[in-house]
């Protein structure tokens, strides 16, 4: 199978994730979309690793997973604490950080 197809898939997934981030308001869904984008990039990295015949891409993919895991831990904690105080998980409600 032509590895380039994986790249098309990765691009598709990334676009879905990105449009989800821009369109949806629910913080949890937003979060999932971000994960989708991260995984799309992982897929692209692994594909490139295969295409170029070295392991650089795969190593970076591991890094991305670690970072994503850490991000999930911190991000979910924030979302939960926001939900507790505001009873809402909509990102548009938390718009106090402005001039």
């Amino acid at each position: 199978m032509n590895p380039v197809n994986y790249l098309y898939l990765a691009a598709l997934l990334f676009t879905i994730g990105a449009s989800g981030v821009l369109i949806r308001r629910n913080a949890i869904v937003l979060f999932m979309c971000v994960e989708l984008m991260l995984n799309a990039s992982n897929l692209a990295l692994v594909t490139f690793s295969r295409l170029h015949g070295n392991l650089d891409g795969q190593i970076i993919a591991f890094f991305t997973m670690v970072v994503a895991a850490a991000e999930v831990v911190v991000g979910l904690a924030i979302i939960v604490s926001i939900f507790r105080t505001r009873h809402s998980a909509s990102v548009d409600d938390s718009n106090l950080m402005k001039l």
Partner: protein
Amino acid sequence: MNSLIPLLVAAPLAGAALLLLGGRALDRFGHWLGTLAAALSFVFGLVLFFSMLGRSTDQRPVHVQLFSWVPVNGFQADVAFQLDQLSITFVLLITGVGTLIHLYSVGYMAHDERRRRFFGYLNLFLAAMLLLVLADNYLLLYVGWEGVGLASYLLIGFWQHKPSAATAAKKAFLVNRVGDVGLSIAIMLMFTDFGNFTYLGVFGAAGQASRSQLTAIGLMLLLAACGKSAQVPLQSWLGDAMEGPTPVSALIHAATMVTAGVYLITRSHAIFDLAPDAQTAVVCVGAVTLLFGAIVGCAKDDIKKALAGSTMSQIGYMILAAGLGPIGYVFAIMHLVTHGFFKAGLFLGAGSVMHGMDDEVNMRHYGGLRKYMPITFVTFGLGYLAIIGFPGLSGFFSKDKIIEAAFAKGGTEGWILGLVTLVGAAVTAFYMTRVMILTFFGEKRWQADDEGHQPHPHESPSTMTLPMIVLAFGSVFAGGLFAFNSSFLKWLEPITGHSEGNSPLSSLTVTLLTSACLLVGVALAYVVYGRSPVPVTPPVGSVLTRAARRDLLQDEFNHAVLVRPGSALAAALVYLDSKGLDGFVNGLAAAIGGISSRLRRVQNGYVRSYALSMFGGTLVLVATTLLMRSV
């Protein structure tokens, strides 16, 4: 003996410091302390004078180095004193008249609650004036020059609660500043041309300097002299300076400080002798001021302002004499000293009259005072006879010599100057007779003041009359003493040099001419003021009279020529500054502020719009990278 020289300055300086810093504890006896400081200085001066008399002529000038003030490589400014025949003459005049006027002020200022401060300022003036005449270099002279200016400012504005006095003080200070700039430029020129500014160095180097250099220095020194000595065109401050207490007018604005310009020119004779153009300028200034002051003196009804016009005119005589070169230096100083006596006496007399008349200064409200103030009348009368040059009195000898010297200048110049001085003598006789008649003769014209309080003229206390009597003696005998056996000429000649000139007229002719002018002036004044009662409200008068009452429009002239263009320039600069420079800076700030306040709308707090801009930015970056790679 020479160690006494710094003490001359130190005594009044210490007095000033004590009186000004001492506080209320000194209020009770502060005035005597000030008088003592002046008297002490006078005694030192006398001791030094007699010790100088005892030495032979070439041993007389002495030099005392006190300390090095600014010892920099190539720039040597010392605090050093030079006492020669010229400076000791001034020292005796300043401390002698100064002591008498201190004594007079004890009585005159008796009811003033700030008397201690007044004496502090007087002592400060004495110290500065002595520093001026004792300095051995121009920089130290400049220190004294500024010091007397400061003391003059403080004393003119002594009654600062009167707005007129405060304004007069500021005016005197500002006009003097113009002259002071001249002196500072002269010192700078000396330093660049000769490399130093001691008398010894400058006069020694003057012989090798070019004529244009010397003329420039001479003209700057003349500007300085004009400012301090109230000569045209910087004369306008002296009339207003009469706002100060009368002893101040007598000491500073008649006898001593205003003659500093004559001292400066005489002291710098080595420069002026080699710069004939500068000398011509000096003579012109003297001749113009001589007539200017005399004309102003004729029209003033304020007794002090009439005397101020007279002072200006008499100093014009001295400046003219000093501008004549070696023919006139000695006589300039001689007239300066005799003038110091009789003009101080006249001012003290005027003060005594004012003291008895509840501070009334308008002579049209005096009249017939001779019966009420006999001592003042006699002393004032002697001063009057001296100033108009009545034969035998002080003014006769000194003024006559100046008129002679003016003729002796030779050529057309000599004739013009001689005639100017003769006319001046006639006008002097006119206005002084006018003052005399208006004040002491005729009907009494006193008026009750606004509260119906009638003045009760009375003779002044003895502290005031005593100095007047002493000065009257000076007015009578000083001239004769100086002229006797040409003693003053012989005394000063080694310092200033002297030449007889070539007069087209004999000495006797000049004396007769002068006396004739004197008679004409007195007779004219008697016809105008003596024969008919003097109106209390001044008549309208001719155009010249009206102009002379307003000081020959000098303030209007200054206003039109200097003040108004100056203000216009300042206004234009302010406009340029506020609209141009400030406008640019403020506009820039406003533009940045406006752009920023629009930009900050981007910070709307919505996470998703931030995310969009991040995506947008990334897209742009990727697109650019791809584009660059493809190129």
